[in-house]
């Protein structure tokens, strides 16, 4: 009995506790990201934004959640029921499951696996399935067009994201995310690899289907795109998954380029602040850029989007991979 408790039961319970400790703050962050988005957009457009529910409108996300929860789930009669319901669940699930390998501080990570970067890349490349399944299962033209656009877009931008990740990995010499952060002790990678940082950020916008690359939703031509047939909780799951993905891509940007949980300078009082707080602050900064871009840049046309991905970013990041490798070899800076 004691052996069973120590060997199986307690580790399982401990892992569940850790998972809850990651997911609950994440969901709260998602809720307040929607609030922050509306407030930031409002400020940039000289409006008030949500300000009636609670002090400064702080309870607005919960009011929205409650509203969506209380509505009726409508499934179109021509829809493929199983796939239709599975698609939002998949999006939401993928938005959460990637957080298993994110290091929040030195040693504060649920699964410190050797191939953490590849795991993140794999999970983010799966995000397209939720959308493509939703588009097909809805049995609607607009949803289908949105799904197709999204599939093409995400596959295209993954290529350049992969090359950017390779550039960073060349400088680190390990696929472990903790090692990636620790390798930035001397200098954060966004300084030597600044062009790659920009490419990664723009590709992250495309990968999460955010403005100016929000063609899969494109309300001006597709009336909402892949999620046009969704209502109530199925829609809410898409929404949550999408915002969780935004936070995830910001976390990836922070880990790969902005030094993860490390303070900007390793001097007091900056290094008195614990690592997870630095990590959260940097994520918030990147997220602010996401919102800023949405408020300023007009939506791309579809052919321009493809041109940017294949004809600009792909050759450019490929050249940078070669350049970085060449410099590392020439000066004998390769990590051991």
């Amino acid at each position, binding site marked *: 009995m004691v052996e069973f408790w120590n060997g199986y039961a307690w580790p399982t319970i401990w892992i569940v506790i850790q998972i809850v400790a990651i997911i609950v703050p994440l969901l709260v962050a998602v809720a307040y990201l929607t609030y922050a988005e509306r407030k930031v957009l409002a400020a940039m457009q000289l409006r008030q934004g949500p300000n009636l529910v609670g002090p400064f409108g702080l309870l607005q996300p919960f009011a929205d959640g409650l509203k969506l929860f209380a509505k009726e789930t409508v499934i179109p009669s021509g829809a493929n029921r199983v796939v239709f319901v599975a698609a939002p669940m998949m999006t939401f699930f993928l938005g959460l499951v990637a957080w298993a390998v994110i290091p929040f501080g030195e040693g504060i990570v649920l699964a410190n696996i050797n191939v953490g970067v*590849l795991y993140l890349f794999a999970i983010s490349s799966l995000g397209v399935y939720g959308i493509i399944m939703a588009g097909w299962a809805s049995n609607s033209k607009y949803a289908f067009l949105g799904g197709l656009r999204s599939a093409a877009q995400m*596959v295209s931008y993954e290529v350049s994201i992969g090359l950017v990740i390779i550039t960073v990995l060349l400088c680190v010499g390990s696929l472990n995310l903790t090692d990636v952060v620790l390798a930035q002790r001397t200098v954060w990678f966004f300084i030597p690899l600044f062009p790659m940082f920009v490419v990664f950020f723009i590709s992250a916008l495309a990968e999460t289907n955010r403005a100016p690359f929000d063609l899969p939703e494109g309300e001006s031509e597709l009336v909402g795109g892949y999620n046009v047939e969704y209502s109530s909780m199925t829609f809410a799951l898409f929404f949550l998954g999408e915002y969780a993905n935004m936070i995830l891509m910001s976390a990836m940007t922070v880990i790969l380029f902005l030094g993860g949980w490390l303070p900007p300078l390793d001097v007091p009082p900056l290094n008195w602040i614990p690592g997870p707080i630095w990590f959260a602050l940097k994520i918030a900064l990147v997220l602010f850029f996401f919102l800023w871009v949405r408020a300023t840049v007009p939506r791309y046309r579809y052919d321009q989007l493809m041109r940017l991905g294949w004809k600009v970013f792909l050759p450019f990041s490929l050249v940078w991979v070669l350049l970085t490798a060449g410099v590392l070899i020439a000066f004998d800076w390769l990590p051991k």
Partner: protein
Amino acid sequence: MIVQGLAFYMFAAILVASAVMVISARNPVHSVLFLILSFFNAAGLFILIGAEFVAMILVIVYVGAVAVLFLFVVMMLDIDFRALRSGLLRYLPIGGTVGLILLVELAVVLGAWAVAPEATTGVAAPLPPPEITNTRAIGQLIYTQYVYLFQASGLILFIAMIGAIVLTLREREGVRRQNITRQVSRRREEVVAVRKVPTRGGV
């Protein structure tokens, strides 16, 4: 050990079941979705034997890219499902023969290892010491001992890609293309002419 055993049987059972569903599902889109499920479980099996790099690459390449394009194509096909089912008996002999040949070849390959144990050392490089992560081990092998084979397979893929592009590329007449450099380098003086238009006179 019990947990690993249970995990193995779970992955293996789902893998076999979803592989059966791939060929028996009525709807081709469901087939592709089951194919994705089976890729996933194969990745799980790879992780269980400690090959996490191969597992992740399997998910990234097959699930993240190949299966997406597959799904893309299958979704756009306008398929009559009943017509698809009717050919089953006609194609069963061919499919069965191919499957049988593959099974026999697999058995021969695996059997050869048991019959002649020295064959294993001939085909496989010596196992790296366990403290090296398997990403590093694979890298060291394919860029040293197998570098020519690796480059040759890369070239073959490259040629296949060029071939696919050449086969599908067609020049269409009268397509208007956007030339971004020309657009950007246009000056106001070249394209705008300011005229003095007399009232009721027209240009």
